[in-house]
C-alpha cells in the first residue's frame, strides 16, 4: 500500500506543533517546582513566614502553567496511536515501556501530590507539606527522565532487533534501552534547560517588581534563589550539551554533519564553522568563518579522528540501502517460510540495515524493484534540512552562553546585595524572559528535525510510521488543535499577566492582610 504523502506532511506538522506547544509549559514546570521546593525548605528551616508566602505566590503561577502542561501532555500520548499507528505497532514493544513506566513511577506521583500541594496547607504539618513539594519536584524530573529514555531510543535504537514473524522491533536488552548513553546526556541537558527557564521566569518577573519598586524584599529574595539555581543549571546545560553533542557525533553522524553544514569530510581535527550561509543546492557553505580544530575536539574529544561529511554519509547510506534490500528480501522469504535457514542468516547479517530499504517505500511500492535513480533519491533523502539545523543550533548555543553570563552577573549582584541598584541590569533581566523558551524549542528542532527522514534513526522512516487515516481526518484534528491551542494560549497568557501584575501585594499574599503568624 502506498503512503499518502499529504497525510505524512500533515501528521508531521501536527506532531511538531503540538510537541513544541507542550514544551512551552513543561520546562517551566520542571524548573519552577524546584524553586518552590528550595523556597519552602528555607521556610521550614527558618520559620520565616515570607518564604511560605513566596511559595504560595510563585505557586499560583506554577498552577496555571501546570494545568497547561497536563492538558497538552495528554495529546502526546494519544497522538502516537492516532497519527502514528504503524510506528506504534512497529516499535511499541520497546518504545511503549518507558512511557508506561513514566506513568507508573512519575506522573502518578506529581499528579496525585499537586492537589495536596495547593489545598493541603492547613491539613498537614509543615514538614509533611515540604515533603509533598519535594516529591512533586522529584516526580516532574523523573517524568522527564522516562520520556527522554523513550526519545533517546528514537535517536539511538539500542537493545532491540527486528522480528519478521511479528513485523516489528522487539526488545533484546532492557538494560541497553534504559541505560542508553544518549538518554543520560539528554536527560541532564533537558532538565537543566528547564531549571534555567524556571530561574529566568522568577528572575525576570522579580526584576519587573524591582523596576516598579513593588514587593522589594519579596522580589530580592526570589531573585537570589533564581540566580543561584539558574547559574548552576546554566553551567550544567552547556556542559551536558557538550556531552550530548559528543553522543550525537557517535550515533547520528548525519545530524552532526548537518548541524555543522559539513558537506565533505575534512582532515582531523575538523574546523568549527561559527557562522556562514549553508547552500543546500551547491552543497557548500558561503562566507564561512571557521575556528580551526574546535569541531574535531567537541565532536570526537580527540585530535586525530575525522568527522564524516554529508557527501560521504550519502554514499554510506547508498551502501546500506543495498544491504537493507538483502534483509528485506530475506524478511519476505521468512514470512513465507519461517524456517528458511538461509534467509535467517541473511537477515541476521543485514538486519541492521533493513530500515534503509524501507526508505525506498516512499518511491517504490516494492523496494526490490527500485531503480538506481530511486536509490539515489532515497540516499539523498537522508540529508536533513541543513540551513535550519545550522542556525537553530547556533542560536541555541549562543543563548546557552548568554544564560551563564546573565546568571553569573545576577549571582554576583545578589551576593553583594546590589540587585536593585542598576535599572539597566533589571531591564536586561526582564527582557531576557523569552530567550530560554526560544533556546528550548530550537533544541527540540535540532534533535527531532535533525533526525529526519527517520522516526527511529536507521530503523523506521518517518513517512512509514503514519496511520492509515485520511488527509481530511488529519486536517480536522489539526484545525481543532490550532483553534483550541490558540484559545488556550490566549487565556493562559492573560491569566499569567493578570497574576504577575497583581503581584503578591495585590493578591494579599505578602504583606499578609492579617498579621502574619510569628513563627
Amino acid at each position: 500500500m502506498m503512503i499518502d504523502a499529504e497525510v505524512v506532511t500533515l501528521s508531521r506538522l501536527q506532531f511538531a506543533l503540538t510537541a513544541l506547544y507542550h514544551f512551552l509549559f513543561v520546562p517551566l514546570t520542571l524548573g519552577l517546582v524546584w524553586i518552590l521546593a528550595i523556597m519552602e525548605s528555607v521556610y521550614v528551616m527558618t520559620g520565616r513566614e515570607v518564604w511560605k508566602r513566596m511559595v504560595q505566590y510563585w505557586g499560583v503561577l506554577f498552577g496555571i502553567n501546570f494545568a497547561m502542561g497536563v492538558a497538552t501532555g495528554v495529546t502526546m500520548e494519544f497522538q502516537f496511536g492516532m497519527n502514528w499507528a504503524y510506528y506504534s505497532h512497529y516499535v511499541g514493544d520497546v518504545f511503549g515501556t518507558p512511557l508506561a513506566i513514566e506513568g507508573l513511577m512519575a506522573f502518578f506521583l506529581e499528579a496525585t501530590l499537586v492537589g495536596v500541594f495547593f489545598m493541603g496547607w492547613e491539613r498537614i504539618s509543615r514538614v509533611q507539606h515540604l515533603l509533598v513539594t519535594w516529591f512533586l519536584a522529584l516526580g516532574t524530573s523523573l517524568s522527564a527522565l522516562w520520556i527522554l529514555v523513550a526519545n533517546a531510543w528514537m535517536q539511538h535504537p539500542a537493545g532491540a532487533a527486528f522480528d519478521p514473524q511479528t513485523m516489528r522491533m522487539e526488545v533484546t536488552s532492557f538494560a541497553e534501552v534504559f541505560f542508553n548513553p544518549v538518554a543520560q546526556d539528554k536527560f541532564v541537558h533537558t532538565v537543566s534547560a528547564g531549571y534555567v527557564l524556571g530561574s529566568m521566569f522568577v528572575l525576570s518577573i522579580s526584576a519587573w517588581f524591582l523596576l516598579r519598586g513593588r514587593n522589594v524584599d519579596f522580589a530580592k529574595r526570589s531573585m537570589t534563589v533564581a540566580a543561584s539555581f539558574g547559574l548552576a543549571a546554566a553551567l550544567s546545560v552547556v556542559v551536558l550539551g557538550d556531552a550530548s553533542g559528543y553522543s550525537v557525533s557517535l550515533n547520528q553522524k548525519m545530524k552532526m554533519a548537518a548541524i555543522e553544514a559539513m558537506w565533505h569530510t575534512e582532515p582531523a581535527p575538523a574546523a568549527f564553522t561559527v557562522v556562514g550561509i549553508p547552500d543546500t543546492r551547491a552543497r557548500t557553505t558561503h562566507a564561512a568563518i571557521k575556528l580551526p580544530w574546535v569541531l574535531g575536539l567537541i565532536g570526537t574529544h580527540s585530535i586525530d579522528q575525522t568527522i564524516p561529511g554529508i557527501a560521504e554519509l550519502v554514499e554510506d547510506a547508498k551502501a546500506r540501502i543495498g544491504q537493507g534490500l538483502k534483509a528485506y528480501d530475506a524478511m519476505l522469504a521468512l514470512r513465507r517460510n519461517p524456517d528458511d535457514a538461509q534467509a535467517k542468516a541473511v537477515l541476521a547479517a543485514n538486519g541492521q540495515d533493513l530500515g534503509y530499504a524501507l526508505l525506498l517505500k516512499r518511491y517504490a511500492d516494492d523496494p526490490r524493484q527500485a531503480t538506481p535513480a530511486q536509490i539515489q533519491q532515497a540516499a539523498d533523502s537522508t540529508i536533513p534540512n541543513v540551513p535550519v539545523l545550522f542556525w537553530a543550533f547556533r542560536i541555541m548555543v549562543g543563548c546557552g552562553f548568554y544564560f551563564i553570563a546573565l546568571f553569573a552577573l545576577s549571582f554576583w549582584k545578589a551576593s553583594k546585595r546590589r540587585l536593585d541598584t542598576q535599572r539597566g541590569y533589571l531591564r536586561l533581566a526582564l527582557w531576557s524572559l523569552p530567550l530560554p523558551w526560544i533556546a528550548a524549542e530550537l533544541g527540540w528542532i535540532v534533535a527531532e528535525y535533525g533526525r529526519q527522514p527517520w522516526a527511529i534513526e536507521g530503523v523506521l522512516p518517518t513517512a512509514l510510521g503514519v496511520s492509515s487515516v485520511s488527509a481530511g481526518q488529519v486536517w480536522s484534528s489539526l484545525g481543532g488543535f490550532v483553534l483550541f491551542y490558540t484559545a488556550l494560549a490566549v487565556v493562559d497568557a492573560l491569566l499569567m499577566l493578570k497574576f504577575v501584575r497583581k503581584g503578591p501585594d495585590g493578591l494579599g499574599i505578602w504583606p499578609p492582610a492579617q498579621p502574619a503568624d510569628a513563627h
Partner: protein
Amino acid sequence: MFDYTTLRLVWWALLGTLLVAFAIMDGFDFGVAGLLKLLGRDNEERQVLLEGIEPTWEGNQVWFILAGGATFAAWPVLYAVSFSGLYLAMFLVLLAFILRPVGFNFRGKLRDPRWASLWDWVLVLSGVVVMLVAGVAFGNLFLGLPFRFDGDLRMSWQGGFLDLLHPYALLCGLVSLSMLLAHGACWAALKADHAIAARAVRIARWATLAFAVLYVLAGIWLAWGIPGYAVAGPAVTDGASNPLYKQVAVGGSWFAGYLQYPGFWIAPLAALLAAVAVQALVGRRGVGGFVASSVMVGGTIASAGFALFPFLLPSRLDPRSSLTVWDASSSRGTLELMLGATVVFLPIVILYTGWVYRVMRGRVTLADVRKSHGGY
C-alpha cells in the same frame, strides 16, 4: 518466570484492572462534572461540588494515562488500531481531556460569573462526551470494527465516525453515561454539603435504575441480536503476536464464554446486585453508596471484557485480522518487565493515593467555600 500464555492472561487481567480503576477513580470526577449544572444550583453550590473533586481528580486521571501507556507497551497493535481507527472519536475524547485540567484550574481565577459559567459548561460537556464515547466505543467492539491488516501488518480502516453510531453502540453509550452519572452522584452524596447531597441521592437512585434497565436490555440484545466471534480451530496461545496467523468464525454467541466458564457470571451479577445496593445505601450519604457504585462500575466493565474474551478488538471487515489476547501482545520479555514494574510501583501508587484521600477527607460545606478563595 511465567510462560507466554500466562503472561498474556495476566496482562489481559491487568488491562481490565486499569480500565476498571480508571472508570471508578476518574469516573466519579466525570460524573460529578457531568451533573454540575443539575446538582449545583448556583455558583457557590457548584464550587462545593468542584472542591469535592479538585484535590484528587488530577491523580485520578493518571489511571487513564497509565491504561493508555500500558496498552502501548503491552498491547501495541491494540493501541495502534483503536486510536487510529477511532480517529475522530478519540479526538473528541482528547479535547475533553485537554479542557478539563484548564477548566478546573482557570474557573476560579476570575471573579466574573460569566467566566465561571463558561468553564462550568466546558466541564459538563467534557464529562458527558467522555462517558458517552467510552460506552459507544465499547458497544462497537461487539459489532466488530471495520479494519484489516496487510502482510506488513499495516492496518487499513473502512468507515467514518458516523458508522460508529449503530443503535446498539448508542445503547451502550447510555449504559456508560447512566452508570457513571450514578457513580458521580454517589460521590457527591458522600462529599458535598447536605443540601446538595440530598439532591445527589435522588439523582443517584434514578440513574442507577436507568442503568440497570439499560444494562439488562444491552445484555438481551447482545445474546439474541448480535453474532459472536470465535477463534476457529485450536487456539495457539503462546505463538508469535501476528493476528493473521489464525482463523475466526463469526455467527456464534458472545455468551459462549459465559457457558464455558460459569465463573464469568460473577461480573454481571455483581453489577446488578450493586445497583440494588446503591438504592439501599446511597440515602445514608456515607461511603457505602460509593463502594456499591464502584462495584457496579467494575462489574459492568468486567462483564463486557469476559464476553469478548479472548477477543480484544474484533474485525467485521476481515475477521481473521481481529485482535485477541493470544496474538496482539508485546514480546514475552516486555510483558515480563512491565509486570515487574507494575508489581513494584502500583502498590506504592495506591499507598500515597490512599494517603492523599485521607488528608483531603471530609464533607465540603457551603461555609468552607465562602471561607476559601476559590480553590487553586
